[in-house]
């Protein structure tokens, strides 16, 4: 009934157009996204799937490929909210990393990071390299060395995860316990590792593919500077937040939204400033800054619990907004064009993650019931991998577009499949308190 009434309301707006007041369209669409996301989340939960899949489905339905309610210009107007949501989720993810609880599992986390990174990167890269132009038509003119560079890039992108999806599913299931904490710890750590690996792979690839063939060590160095600067500034913001919350523990949610807003914009602004003044490609990653800030607030001082509680109270609207908009950005046309390559990449990535997680847990000597299930929780992929694919487009305009189309199509599949697999694992391990 609610759905029918919302549809009727939307029909009214398309029927009457009186020159809307400024900001009317994005305000309305943001509200519609929240309400429809909520309805879709509940509907899909009724058949046992995670609500995040419902949010993605609602976004897909509203997106430019189907109903077109969230058209490309409208998505542009809502981009601001999307970035805000990413930073907020990163704060929440950082707050989930409680050192006191993670300390006992640092070995396991380390092995899972190493094993899944190496195995995924190498096996996906190898499959791409062997398949060559049969999988990537744009690679037809490349030499063997150049093909290896492209394969390495795809391999690195395959390593990236989605902390936001992982956190959303963990929150939805109200999952608490060593398995969930390990999963989140690994997921966040791997995103940092991916950024470093990507920088190295991109520099190598540029050296191999560019006419002058020089290795751009400066770029790799710049990435290390970015990561260090991100962590340091995040820690400083975390200390300030911690102090503020300790003194004035009310209205934390508003404070966090403001922080997410400022971090996002200052990170982007600094990048633009450094590029304009020194011609240096410094990209401070808001995600990394916010994870570091959340981590510091959670683990330094006494305001961690209040912080986590406040984050939890307002995280649902942020998740719904973020994933519904992510659903709207899924590129069905790209998937239709490149589904064979995309599904091959998904299969290669999934099988290597499953095998590597099992091996990593075994090497770490994990005897828990969840040791065979870690892999299912690492299939989610979003956000940062799309950013990496777009960086490839920027660096290699001659074939970057085709590269990104295939990669984004594979990410779209992982974005849909990942949460379902993760919910299954959390339920099997017995840490999901809500089904």
């Amino acid at each position: 009934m609610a759905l029918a009434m919302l549809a009727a309301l939307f029909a009214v707006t398309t029927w009457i157009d009186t020159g809307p007041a400024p900001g009317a369209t994005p305000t309305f669409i943001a509200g519609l996204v929240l309400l429809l996301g909520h309805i879709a989340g509940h509907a899909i939960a009724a058949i046992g799937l995670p609500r995040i899949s419902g949010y993605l489905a609602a976004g897909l339905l509203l997106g430019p490929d189907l109903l077109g309610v969230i058209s490309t210009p409208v998505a542009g107007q809502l981009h601001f909210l999307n970035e805000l949501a990413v930073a907020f989720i990163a704060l929440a993810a950082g707050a989930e990393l409680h050192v006191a609880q993670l300390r006992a599992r640092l070995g396991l986390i380390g092995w899972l990071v190493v094993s899944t990174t190496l195995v995924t990167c190498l096996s996906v890269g190898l499959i791409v390299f062997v398949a060559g132009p049969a999988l990537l038509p744009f690679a037809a003119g490349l030499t063997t060395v150049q093909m290896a560079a492209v394969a390495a890039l795809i391999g690195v992108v395959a390593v990236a995860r989605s902390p936001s999806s992982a956190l959303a599913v963990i929150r939805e299931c109200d999952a608490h316990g060593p398995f969930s904490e390990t999963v989140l710890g690994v997921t966040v750590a791997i995103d940092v590792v991916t950024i470093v690996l990507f920088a190295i792979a991109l520099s190598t690839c540029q050296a191999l593919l560019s006419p002058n063939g020089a290795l751009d060590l400066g770029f790799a160095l710049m990435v290390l500077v970015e990561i260090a600067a991100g962590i340091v500034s995040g820690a400083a913001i975390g200390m300030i937040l911690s102090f503020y919350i300790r003194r004035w523990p009310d209205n934390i949610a508003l404070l966090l939204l403001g922080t997410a807003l400022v971090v996002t914009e200052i990170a982007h602004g600094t990048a633009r400033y450094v590029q304009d003044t020194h011609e240096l490609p410094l990209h401070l990653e808001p995600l990394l800054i916010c994870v570091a800030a959340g981590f510091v607030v959670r683990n330094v001082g006494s305001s961690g619990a209040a912080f986590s509680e406040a984050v939890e109270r307002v995280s649902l609207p942020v998740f719904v907004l973020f994933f519904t908009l992510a659903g709207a950005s899924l590129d069905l046309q790209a998937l239709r064009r490149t589904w064979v390559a995309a599904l091959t990449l998904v299969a290669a990535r999934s099988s290597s993650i499953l095998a590597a997680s099992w091996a990593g847990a075994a090497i770490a000597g994990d005897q828990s019931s969840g040791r065979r299930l870690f892999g299912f929780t690492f299939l989610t992929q979003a956000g940062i991998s799309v950013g990496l694919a777009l960086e490839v487009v920027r660096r290699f305009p001659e074939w970057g577009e085709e590269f990104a189309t295939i990669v984004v199509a594979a990410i779209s599949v992982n974005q849909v499949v990942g949460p379902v697999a993760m919910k299954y694992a959390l339920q099997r391990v017995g840490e999901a308190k809500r089904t």
Partner: protein
Amino acid sequence: MKLVLAAALVTALALAGSRFSFLHLPLAGVRGSLWVRNILLTGTEFIFIGLLLGSPFLGILDDMTLVGLAPILGMGLSWIGLLFGIQWQVRRWDGVVRSGLLPALVQAGVVAVIITVPFYFLLRWSLDLSHAWCLVGALTLGAAGSDTAQSALALVGRSARGEGRALARLLRLVADLDGLVAVVVFGAVCWLPVLHGDTGSVGLWAALSVGLGVVMGLVVVALTSYQLAEEELLLVLLGTVFSGGGLALYLSLSPLFVNAVTGAVVANLSQERVLRSLQSLLVRGDRSVYVLFLLLAGAQWHPSGWSVLLLAGAYLMLRTTGKLAGNWLAFRGVVAPAVRGHMGLGLLSHGGLAIAVVVNLQQIHDGGSPVVDAVTTIVLVGVIVSELFSPALVWRVLGGARPMPSS
């Protein structure tokens, strides 16, 4: 960059304002004259901070930035509207509310008429506006003037002793209820075809306003009809506030009115448990939203010439006259004649919905228009001056209070 930093600045000020202004500040802790204390305790200083940040001075919240912040304002208007509407739970009204409702509305109606009629001619004469725009300006002023803010009553009413306490309760009840006239009258202003590019009719826009509010209310009732956790209620609340506000702005209607109708539907059709939770969520953000309004109303304020200040003086006089006459007329048989004569002075506190009405007008009609600038200046000056004097006037009225038992 500037938009986001401005948004962050406004958020920080709203956060600080909700914490450090209003009644959080102990009276004894504020040094300086009584007037300065009144300004600080009622949050009026944020109008000046907004003005300082706006384009006439620092330019941080310039016109372009304010357009970018429009969704936040739309959400704020909807929030206030919903909070106002959700209080109209008819089945919970006791005898006191039932007996106070009609007089409260009558006094507010009298104020609205006493302001609107002369201002129609004053605007026509001073700004040389067309009939339709004079009607928009005069009715908006009538709507804004009819409402009584709670700030002075909350500030002084608590310390009333003896018989003054009963009168303080009555004044607070009136201030709670008389906002309905402001919301409805301004809602009706937005039905005038002139605000819709001279398309449609008053009936069409009225039906759409009420229809949107009712449908959004039914959506909320349907979505909250089963057990929801608090974070899910927040999700539904935000979804309603955004979509209701966005739709109203899309159709150049009043988000305040549309969401008040939504709130009233929710109040009367929802389960008690859901209603309590929604009210608690709305109240939690209320103060921050109000500070936001004060700031942005100040930032959008383009102080007009001296002639408009004269109009502001006329507005204050008419409002005072209206409050005195309205209360004298409405509370016959309820309040002793000696008190009734000056009871209106206890209801001069100004702000809250009046500011929301001004912000709403700025939202649905392009800034820079003479009528919007004039109405903004008149109401903001009215709010500032009223907040300087109203706590002292409330105190005076309560000192001589002798409310009669209701018959």
